[in-house]
């Protein structure tokens, strides 16, 4: 494995459900190298999304350590500079067209200039939506929305893309195309990809496959 860009040691996360304590992650260790593509599979409730949220810094572990190698930033700023996240539900801002949704990542980081605008257009062209740049999310299909979300995740040239079941709301064919796009862009830009998925075929396309079972990698 090449040099690690993110390293997790003994991650533990417990949720309270009424009076019950549910231990979702039980001391997970994970190290992802630069340029690597890693898939994480597991049954529903196995802790895949929880692990991804911890890796993204959206949630904090009860125990364990997480290291983002080479990132001087902290907190929200670190997410903007280091990470690109793709969600199952796309989460596009309905008031903004496709181009502005992609640009939003740059707006939050530093404000968009001519370079960022050109990059957003280039990314939309790369995901095959050059002609739909000024369409609102409601005017796009599910697959197109997810492609906009992929372009947005790549906008700030992140070191790591975290994709949480990006094909979960798409049909088989469209889902396959999105996975190909993610893997292709990841290889092209030498960006590390961590893909959480149920789909065995999609997971198999990654360079490393992990299976999460009862809060631990098996």
């Amino acid at each position, binding site marked *: 494995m090449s040099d690690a860009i993110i390293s997790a040691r003994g991650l533990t996360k417990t949720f309270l459900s009424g009076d019950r304590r549910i231990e979702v992650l039980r001391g997970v260790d994970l190290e992802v190298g630069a340029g690597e593509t890693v898939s994480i599979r597991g049954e529903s409730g196995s802790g895949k999304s929880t692990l991804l949220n911890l890796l993204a810094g959206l949630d904090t572990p009860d125990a364990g350590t997480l290291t983002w190698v080479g990132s001087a930033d902290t907190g*929200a700023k670190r997410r903007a500079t280091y990470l690109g996240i793709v969600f199952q539900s796309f989460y596009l*801002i309905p008031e903004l067209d496709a181009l502005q949704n992609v640009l939003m990542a740059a707006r939050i980081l530093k*404000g968009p200039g001519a370079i960022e605008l050109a990059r957003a257009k280039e990314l939309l062209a790369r995901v095959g939506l050059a002609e739909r740049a000024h369409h609102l999310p409601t005017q796009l299909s599910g697959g197109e929305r997810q492609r906009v979300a992929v372009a947005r995740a790549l906008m700030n040239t992140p070191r790591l893309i975290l994709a949480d079941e990006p094909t979960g709301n798409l049909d088989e064919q469209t889902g396959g195309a999105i996975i190909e796009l993610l893997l292709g862009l990841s290889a092209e830009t030498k960006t590390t990809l961590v893909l959480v998925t149920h789909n065995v075929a999609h997971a198999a396309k990654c360079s490393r496959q992990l299976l999460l079972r009862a809060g631990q990698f098996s």
Partner: protein
Amino acid sequence: MPWYFYLALKQLFPTGRRFPFFTAISVVSVALGVALLIVVLGVMGGFAYQIRQTIIQTEGEIQIKARGSIGNYHEVVRRIEAVPGVAGASPYASGMLMVVYQNKPSFPLMRGLDMASIGHVVSLEKFVTAGSLDALDDDAVILSEGLADALGVPIGANIEVYTPLMLARRDSEVILPHTVKVVGVMRFGHQELDKSTIYCTLRLAQELYGLVGDVHGINIRIQPGAKEDEVAGRINAVLPPDMRAFSWMDSFADFLTVLKLEKNMMTFVLLFVVLVAAFLTMSLLLVLVLKKTREIGLLGALGASRRQIALCFCLQGIGVGVVGTAAGLGLGLTVLHFRNDIVRAITRVTGGQELMARFYQFSELPEHIEVRDLVVIVTAALVLSTLAGIIPAVIAARLKPVEALRSE
């Protein structure tokens, strides 16, 4: 432009989408509150302003009064005119009379004017609606419009004038009234003045009241920019002890205090309308925060800080305040501009126009809005709208991205 400012604007006024219900309702409610405040304060201010204008246009800003009548008034006028800030002074005599035309009596207030100096204090020409001020001599009078109408007297007709002085004469004497010619009619637009006033020369007034060269008072016009109270103070310094200068504000102090109190109370009460609008904005913003919970989670995931997310929602409150206040200003000033057309349309239906003139002194609804009032209204609306955005902003900022993204 910072992203939170951009997104706030886009969420308030999106392009290519239906105008948001939230924005429309919030903006309209703030606009109505602001417009209502402007209209009410404008009309309230108009009453005070109109009274001031009527007094100043008919009597000047300052009046000299004495315990009795003022003798040697030429010397007093000379002294007053030398005071800095005084533009002119004119003596007058006034009192009640009885006038009779074709056996129809009326009891107007007489105003005896010094025709040589009255032009230095007030310009009465513009109020003459029939006849001419130049024709006013010691055998002539000008009537207020209401008096002329009540007596049914035409221009050029003679009327008989009786003074209270005649009542003091012995029973054996025959009371001979003065016969004077009506040479004009005046209308000031103020119900009290227009109802029953008779204007004559100072000499005729002195004769009718047996003043023998004395006057009842002196009207004073001050120079533009001078302050009434300050000039009145300077005049008092040069007056004999039995005379005193009163600014128009002194003369109507009680009335002006009541007007000011009413205006302040109305401002206070009507500010609650803007407050209700602010609460409406806040509740709609809270709904918006709930509706956009997952987007708030996304913004957090993209690297937005809590402070920036709070600013995004706070700016929406400010945006509603700015647009609502601007719309309210426009609406309020437009309603004020067309106030008399609106009142005429309403009174045409309700038939209350004469009642309005009788009770409010003015034949038309006055209006005067001061810049200070506008500043208070605009500031209050903007501050309340900003405060309305703070609570939803804090709630949005406190959402954890991971929980917000998970919300249904």
